[in-house]
């Protein structure tokens, strides 16, 4: 029974590889791609009976460190089940994801692979393995973006997204290594417990890098350009990437860091940051309500992110568990079959209860929402967008341009000097050294004689 979780992960990974690798599987009818996701999602429900049970399989990937295992933690299993179901929803959502290059098996395989990696990343109990899994997920997402969202400008845009996600990966690695140094272990629970129990509290830099990693992975402004690009993916694919992969894992990472945050002054900063993001979200909703549903998905995602941040004050666990399925429903199930031109149309076409809820929200916003919140949101959004643009384009490009120019000049000077003066000097040094060595050898041999 303890093999259920590793078996499930293995099945997802194997299915992904088979669907991608075998041409026959890539070409088979779409039901052949969809059905396994339903079977596996149903199987994942069995995981709920395993909560709290010990792991049956331990893997010593890196021999000098603690072995890693997939653990049946309450929250992680709950979210893992949601991930499995969200893939199922993505597979069965209509319209089907646009078959990339007429090869829908490729996308299906890729999504199964991503799902296996996400479930493993949620449940693994060793930090370094989690870092590796998150790296892989980020890489897989960038490849998806490069293949299907950015085909016309593959090189530059995909590279930007990759660098942004790599920034998050490196921040996470830095945090993990600092935690290792602090606690002497990579075991997630032990390391976090040691850090939070410390009298002096966790090092501020550790929290800073942890939150940077969370921000990038959740796609929060100003690190949201990859998330916005993911919105451009074919609908089911985009919804799956946004809902079931990195943003979710970022939220879970924040959830795991909660113990450190609560015991430190970062709590206040985060609460303030959360209010700002909330304001951005509200402002965004007002601005984008009449435009495409994809924009709305972006808003919902960011709202989720800032909601998690805000709820860091105490009710984090419950919130993490509640907002994700809700988002799934809103994004994937509730969406009408005939894709609406705007969100307003989608709201009107939706089920009655949600329509009323939605109207109530709109009424609340239009009539009673504090104007200050709007103003604050506009300012914060502008700042976030500008920072994002700076990070995404200007800062990277300019920094690299400046650095490259400087390096080129330095390299040119070196090269110039090397063909001129330095070359002569080195030649002379060689001759002189040769003479010294020869004389020393002669003297030594004369002494020996």
């Amino acid at each position, binding site marked *: 029974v303890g093999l259920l979780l590793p078996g499930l992960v293995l099945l997802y990974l194997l299915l992904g590889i088979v669907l991608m690798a075998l041409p026959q599987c890539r070409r088979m009818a779409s039901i052949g791609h969809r059905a396994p996701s339903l079977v596996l999602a149903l199987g994942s429900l069995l995981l709920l009976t395993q909560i709290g049970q010990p792991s049956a399989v331990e893997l010593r990937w890196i021999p000098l460190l603690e072995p890693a295992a997939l653990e049946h933690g309450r929250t992680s299993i709950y979210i893992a089940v949601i991930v499995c179901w969200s893939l199922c929803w993505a597979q069965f959502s209509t319209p089907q994801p646009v078959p990339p290059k007429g090869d829908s098996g490729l996308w299906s395989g890729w999504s199964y692979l991503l799902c296996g990696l996400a479930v493993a990343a949620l449940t693994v109990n060793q930090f370094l393995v989690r*870092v590796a899994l998150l*790296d892989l997920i980020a890489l897989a997402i960038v490849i998806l973006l*490069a293949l299907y969202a950015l085909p016309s400008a593959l090189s530059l845009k995909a590279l930007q997204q990759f660098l942004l996600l790599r920034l998050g990966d490196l921040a996470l690695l*830095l945090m993990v290594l600092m935690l290792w140094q602090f606690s002497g272990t990579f075991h997630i629970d032990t390391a976090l417990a040691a850090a939070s129990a410390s009298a002096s509290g966790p090092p501020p830099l550790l929290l800073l890098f942890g939150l940077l990693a969370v921000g990038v992975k959740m796609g929060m402004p100003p690190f949201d350009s990859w998330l916005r690009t993911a919105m451009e993916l074919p609908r089911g694919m985009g919804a799956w990437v946004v809902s079931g992969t990195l943003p979710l894992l970022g939220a879970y990472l924040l959830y795991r860091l909660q113990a450190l945050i609560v015991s430190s002054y970062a709590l206040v900063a985060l609460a303030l940051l959360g209010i700002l993001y909330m304001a951005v979200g509200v402002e965004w909703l007002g601005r984008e309500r009449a435009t495409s549903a994809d924009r709305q998905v972006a808003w919902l995602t960011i709202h989720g992110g800032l909601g998690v941040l805000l709820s860091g004050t105490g009710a984090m666990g419950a919130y993490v568990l509640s907002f994700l399925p809700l988002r799934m429903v809103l994004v994937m199930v509730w969406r009408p079959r005939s894709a609406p031109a705007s969100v307003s149309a989608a709201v009107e076409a939706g089920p009655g209860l949600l329509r009323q809820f939605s109207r109530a929200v709109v009424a609340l916003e239009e009539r009673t929402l504090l104007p200050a919140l709007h103003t604050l949101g506009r300012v914060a959004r502008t700042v976030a967008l500008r920072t994002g643009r700076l990070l995404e384009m200007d800062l990277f490009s300019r920094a690299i341009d400046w650095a*490259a120019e400087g*390096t*080129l000049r330095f390299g040119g000077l070196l*090269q110039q000097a090397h063909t001129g003066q330095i070359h002569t000097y080195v030649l002379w040094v060689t001759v002189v050294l040769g003479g010294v060595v020869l004389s020393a050898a002669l003297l030594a041999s004369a002494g020996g004689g």
Partner: protein
Amino acid sequence: MASLWLVLSLALPWVGAGAAVLMSRWRLVRIKAFSLVVVGASALALLGAVVIGHGHADLFLRTEWIPSYHAALRLELDAVSLPFALNVLGVALVTLAYAWGYFDQVAQPHLLYALLLAFIGGMLGTCLFSDAILFFICWESMLVSSSLLLVGWGEGDDTRRITQTYFVYTQAGSLLILLCLAWLIVTTGTSNMAVMAQGLAAVTPPQRALLAIGLLLGFGIKLAVVPLHVWLPDAHSIAPMPVTILLAAAMLSMGAYGIVRFPLMLLGAETIRPLEPVLLVVALGTQVYGALMCLVVRDIKRIVAYSSVSQMGYVLFGLATLSATGVAGSIMHVINHGVLKALLFMSVGIVIRATGRRQIEQLGGLGTALPRLAITLLIAAVAMAGLPPFSAFHSEWMILSGGLRSDYPLLGYLAFATPLLTAGYGLWLGFRLSSGAMPADMGVERVHPAMTWAAYGLIAVTFIEDLIPGPLYALADAAAQAILGGALR
């Protein structure tokens, strides 16, 4: 028994080189097969020595050679020399497999292969001889054979001048090393590297520091540390691709071996400690400089050459942290760099051979024309950036962790910027070559399957090394403990 295997491993490339000289009437394909068999047998012999010797230090041939300095023909395969020797033979083997397809028509093939075998033998001897004089002789034989390969079979118009530069620069380093070794031999009265440390009591701390600086400079030239790297991009870009691979993936690491063997192990970490901040800054500068140059140069072979400079910065950084984690990471990175740099050069070599072009502006659209090659290139770039599921992930986190554990953690934090740059230039190169439309005037020729299969083999190696990293960690851990004498933390 293990000694016999060890002697066989070292002797085979040298004997093979001698035999190849006499093969002037042989057909090229037979010379290729002969060289491949010789290096394969040498690698097997080395593995035989490891298996039979169970990793114990194994001395061989105590025959007195220069009695006044107790110089003897002495071979030793210890925890430090083993990873370097494995890297040399592994890279050599896969390079000769690649060369099977690369050298389809070549002048004086018997001499070319004789020099290649001598080059490989020189590097192997440098790792295996535990006598300082023999170490230096092998060190010099590397330089001579590689210089002859450059001047004889170099590609381009400026081979003589570039070879002269290569020779002069590396010879300057060699002479510095020789001066320091001579000083050590005269002071300690022995050239036996194992016994030398006992005679170091007579050397005062300032003298030790001077020796350390001299040796670091000498080996730093071979390691291509900025600003002593000027010979590297030119030499790498004119050499025929198999020679470039040997230079980048195997020979550069000999500089790291020298630093480990002499300043770190012989003079001791405490001698180096005052130099630690300088070394860390130089290493960091080397990483960043190499990476930035990759973003500005336009010749794809030079881009990969500069990435070697950057990667050697990693190796030096790990060593300079003087922490067991950092040092172990560096040893591991030597092996990973060997595999990945060979892969990257092979991919770029295939591009150059298939298209006849080297300037990045004139290339593109390979994803459509040569999809497998494009995937190989992208894998090489991603792997070089230290991402799983490829082996550099392991060495990278260890080196970065070593930086945080050093006495200068701020420099450790700064080092985290380099993987970002590595990802930037690697992916930029991969995407730039793979994506977009193929230039209208660009033709694509078929390349020999040996070249592509050699690259696929390396992808498999780096993938397996990541999934089953146990042996790699065991090698690095044993080496780090031998170097610093501490546990891996």
